[in-house]
């Protein structure tokens, strides 16, 4: 038996936080599936899911039950261990990314001094999971998806990291709670006013990081069947899906913490402002997905290397000069 009094309180705190994060990730998956299908429907002038529950609001539950109940099939010739490890490797770091996020003034699981880099490090693990999934499926579409994923990460990782350096220069901290507190409650006190370029570059890179259209090259359903997750059935596919939505929330949460003042708002600062900003950005991501066509591979590389890297380097230089003067 474990005696609860011998466990130091931070440990209990982390466990409770983890349970909270897991609940949030699950709920967020349901909400995002519904939102995505409804947004897609309305953009294409159709109602979207409508049959299950009022306005189809129970549709994600039906989808989830279907995914859980489906048989999990390992393709012939696939590497069984890596094949089933890949969805887990994709999903687990997403949970870790939620830990340093300050949802509210006192709603932060782990107050770690390097929270920003922790999120960047763990979200880069998704690339690895997609590679393993694509390679171990023994399917040419999957392998092509994996190859595209690597090349995509080569394209966006550098501008993603470079675009955040001016924020660190301005705030002098890597702790997300401290970065939030350096901004005020009013929109003109947010860092997006001082760093509009960094915000645009970061947000575009988040699209690439989460493999969302127009940068959904690794899955590209019209070219590669379903890319890296072609062979996955049941919850194998479900975990990839859940991970993608979790990374979207993490990306939008980072954007709102770093550039939009986090949980602070003009009236009554709190977690509701944070969630409002995050889901507003998520809606923008869905809006973009159903508006723009997929870019070609070289277009993404050109955009990242010829525009974003020089621009973000210039941005760093100017910010450093302004901070010093």
């Amino acid at each position, binding site marked *: 038996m474990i005696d609860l009094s011998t466990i130091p309180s931070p440990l209990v705190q982390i466990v409770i936080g983890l349970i909270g994060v897991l609940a949030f990730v699950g709920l967020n998956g349901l909400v995002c599936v519904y939102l995505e299908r409804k947004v897609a429907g309305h953009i294409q002038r159709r109602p979207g899911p409508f049959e299950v529950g009022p306005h189809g609001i129970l549709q994600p539950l039906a989808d989830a039950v279907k995914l859980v109940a489906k048989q999990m099939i390992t393709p012939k010739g696939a590497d069984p261990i*890596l094949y089933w490890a890949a969805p887990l490797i994709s999903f687990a770091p997403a949970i870790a990314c939620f830990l340093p996020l300050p949802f509210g003034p006192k709603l932060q699981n782990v107050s770690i001094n390097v929270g920003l*880099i*922790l999120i960047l*490090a763990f979200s880069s693990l998704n690339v*690895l999971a997609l*590679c393993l999934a694509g390679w*171990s499926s023994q399917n040419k579409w999957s*392998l092509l998806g994996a*190859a595209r994923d690597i090349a995509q990460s080569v394209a966006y990782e550098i501008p993603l990291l470079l675009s955040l350096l001016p924020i660190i220069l301005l705030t002098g901290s890597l702790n997300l709670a401290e970065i939030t507190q350096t901004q005020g409650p009013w929109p003109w006190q947010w860092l997006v006013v001082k760093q509009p370029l960094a915000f645009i570059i970061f947000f575009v890179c988040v699209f690439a990081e989460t493999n969302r259209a127009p940068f959904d090259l690794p899955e590209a359903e019209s070219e590669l069947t379903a890319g890296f997750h072609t062979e996955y059935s049941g919850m194998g596919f479900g975990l990839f899906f859940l991970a993608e939505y979790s990374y979207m929330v993490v990306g939008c949460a980072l954007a709102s913490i770093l550039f939009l003042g986090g949980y602070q708002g003009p009236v009554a600062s709190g977690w509701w402002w944070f969630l409002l900003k995050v889901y507003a950005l998520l809606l923008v991501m869905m809006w973009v997905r159903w508006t723009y066509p997929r870019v070609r591979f070289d277009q993404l590389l050109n955009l990242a290397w010829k525009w974003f890297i020089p621009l973000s380097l210039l941005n760093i230089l100017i910010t450093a000069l302004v901070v010093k003067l």
Partner: protein
Amino acid sequence: MDKIGLGVFLAHVLIIVAGGLVTVFARSLVRALTGLIATLFGVAGLYFLMAAPFIGVMQVLIYVGAVSILIFFAIAFTKSSHLGEEARPRKQSQWFFLLSVPGLVIFSLGYLLIKFIPQGFLQPQETQVKDLGGFFLGPYMLPFELISLVLLVAMMGAVILGFEKKIKRED
């Protein structure tokens, strides 16, 4: 070191050793790479245990997130079959070399560490990232800049190698 700390430390050591064994003994190259990644991850965890979270996350960001993915890129598209030269049973002399080199390193390093262990490392203190940056641009300026020079040379070398291939193909 309290009991929880010891347990966590042993768990990390287990991950590192198991990952290393998988790296050495796996028949498929990608599985070996996965073992290597597990080892690197375990080392990152050890940095966290030593109250150096910045180095820990940097380890994840650079080694797990970037370097291993590039290694993956290099080996995933080679045909690494289960029947290649690597998959044959090893000769006795190979086993000798396989075990002697790491054994020598482990014993010599372990001996040195036990003999000359510095005091006061049992309760590590976290160093602020700001202080780390100060060190890089203060007392350790020269090594820091030398490392960036080495990286620059490596990058230029890669670019030149890439260009050479292109020229040859045109001939």
